């Protein structure tokens, strides 16, 4: 009976009638939530009972030695790898394990790969154009036209990543650091809620690193994106991170501020201690 009377209730808005402008529900705080996730490759546990929570607007660094499961974790979040058990939630509404890679991407999870892959034959501008959040079915893509609004958005991102002068050059001529920024720009075009950034400063010069740190810290924030950075370079992590998570053998070893984490004896043993030069710096 109460069900029928609820149908008659004129104030009620059915879920399917709610416009899907911001489908990600972050009212409870976390934007990404991994619980008890386990992945096994041929008997090797790449991820072992991993629990991780990222808050909306947070900038989180994830560090850990090679083979700690950082890349596998990214693969799980983006739908490339399916875990054997556990649950992965985006906001409190979307179960990522039930979605395909393109669905997850269009939901607002952008990933920057370790090795920059931009479309070298296309110009910087065109790279950003393709990355833009838009109707990506065939006919709309065929008949798509460049509106002023789109142009403004692309210019805005070009400005953010500092590639305004190179907009009409092919992306193939960019330096390594510029390609990394272009990739970050391509992620921004999708107006993501969560950015996954894999080793952004590998192979960068000191100056490029500084610029990248500025760029990433500027991106994270309430009402903007949440950013997850996987990085090896301790100096870089120290310069940007507020919260650091240390992974080891597929699960979380320690979590906290950089100072807390770097004093944790377990962490020193498995990771920081392994590289005394970095520790001194």
């Amino acid at each position, binding site marked *: 009976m109460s069900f029928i009377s609820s149908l008659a209730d004129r104030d009620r808005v059915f879920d399917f009638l709610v416009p899907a402008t911001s489908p990600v529900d972050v009212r409870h705080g976390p934007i990404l939530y991994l619980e008890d996730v386990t992945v096994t490759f041929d008997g090797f546990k790449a991820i072992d009972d991993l629990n991780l929570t990222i808050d909306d607007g947070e900038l989180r660094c994830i560090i850990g030695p090679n083979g700690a499961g950082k890349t596998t974790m990214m693969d799980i979040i*983006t739908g490339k790898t399916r875990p054997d058990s556990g649950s992965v939630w985006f906001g409190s509404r979307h179960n990522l394990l039930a979605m395909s*890679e*393109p669905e997850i*991407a*269009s939901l607002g999870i952008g*990933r920057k*790969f370790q090795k920059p*892959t*931009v*479309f*070298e*034959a*296309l110009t910087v501008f*065109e790279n950003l*154009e*393709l*990355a833009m*959040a838009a109707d*990506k*079915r*065939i006919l709309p*893509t*065929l*008949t*798509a*036209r460049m509106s002023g609004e789109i142009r403004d958005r692309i210019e805005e991102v070009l400005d953010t990543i500092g590639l305004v*002068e*190179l907009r*009409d*050059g*092919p992306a193939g*001529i*960019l330096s390594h650091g510029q390609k990394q920024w272009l990739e970050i720009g*391509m992620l921004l075009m*999708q107006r993501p809620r969560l950015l996954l950034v894999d080793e952004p400063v590998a192979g960068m010069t000191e100056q490029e690193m500084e610029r990248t740190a500025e760029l990433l810290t500027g991106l994270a924030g309430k009402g903007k994106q949440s950013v997850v950075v996987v990085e090896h370079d301790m100096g870089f992590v120290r310069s940007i991170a507020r919260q650091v998570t240390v992974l080891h053998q597929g699960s979380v070893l320690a979590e906290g501020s950089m100072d807390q984490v770097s004093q944790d004896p377990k962490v020193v043993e498995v990771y920081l201690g392994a590289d005394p030069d970095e520790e001194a710096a």
Partner: protein
Amino acid sequence: MWLLQPFNERATRLFLGVLLACLALVTVLHLAVPAGHPLYVSAYTVTLLGKYLSYALLAVAVDLVWGYLGILSLGHGAFFALGGYAMGMYLMRQIGDRGTYGNPILPDFMVFLNWDSLPWYWLGFDMPWFAFLMVMLAPGALALVFGFLAFRSRVTGVYLSIITQAMTFALMLAFFRNEMGFGGNNGLTDFRELLGFDLRTDATRLGLFVATGLALALGYVLCRAIVTSKLGRVSVACRDAEARTRFLGYRVERFQLFVFVVSAMLAGVAGALYVPQVGIINPSEFSPIFSIEIVLWVALGGRGTLYGAVIGALLVNYAKTVFTGAMPDAWLFALGGMFVLVTVFLPKGVAGLLSYRLKRKAQQSDDSSTPQEATS
């Protein structure tokens, strides 16, 4: 309107201008110049040129998938042949009771095989609109099924090339069989008229030549519209970094399928225009060698430019006509030699040479280096 976009490009207008001027020139030289005059273009030459133009359209179709989508199809001859067969079936039905056996419905080869009625798949081919629709739908349907299965399983690169070869080879074997109902190894021939025009008159031959030229122009504009649209840029993205494109949220397999089907349909149209001009269609058009030859035309002309494909198809086929006339045994050596020379000295084909010349000219007139070069 996205279809009109190519007309804004100088290169496209230039290409269309040259093509239409050539069509007009040949028409004038054929009609207005008396036979025997050194500038006279005979009906034989007109038909030969028409054949080259249909090959050029086929090459444009291959360049669309190879140059812009990165899919090396070694089976486009199959789509060409299917379009040709659809046209051939219409032309066979037009013969009516004028065949050797005088059967008003059945083509000669069916009477010869003692068949008493038309197979179901021959029904409707007496109507030109249906046959012309089938010219595009039959290759399109094959490309749709084949592409759906291949791209869904993410078969790309050399594996896809090999299975396209297998596809065209399998079709060749199938069409060789008499029981298939397509005339076996003799194929379909002895055509008489198309839409009421006698195929043996010079006027019809000229008409077919002009129609083929216009089809090439339209096909070129269509392909150009596709490659200059955002979809074209997505295609290039699929070509260069497929996984990355998928990650941007594009369903790569659907884009591949769309472009592949469009290309197959264009190849079908080229085949349909080829058949009435050469007067026969038989399973040899399905042969794997032919499909590889098409790819050679595109490679020689310059991949990924569209006009390069046209240049390549015309050059190679002209050379083939000359060589097989003068030194039939030397043709394959000449083809191989051309291919080696072009790959070594002109990696971007003849079109690459043209655009290099144009760039050099532009640089000489504007000596200050461009910002692009300053950063490289």
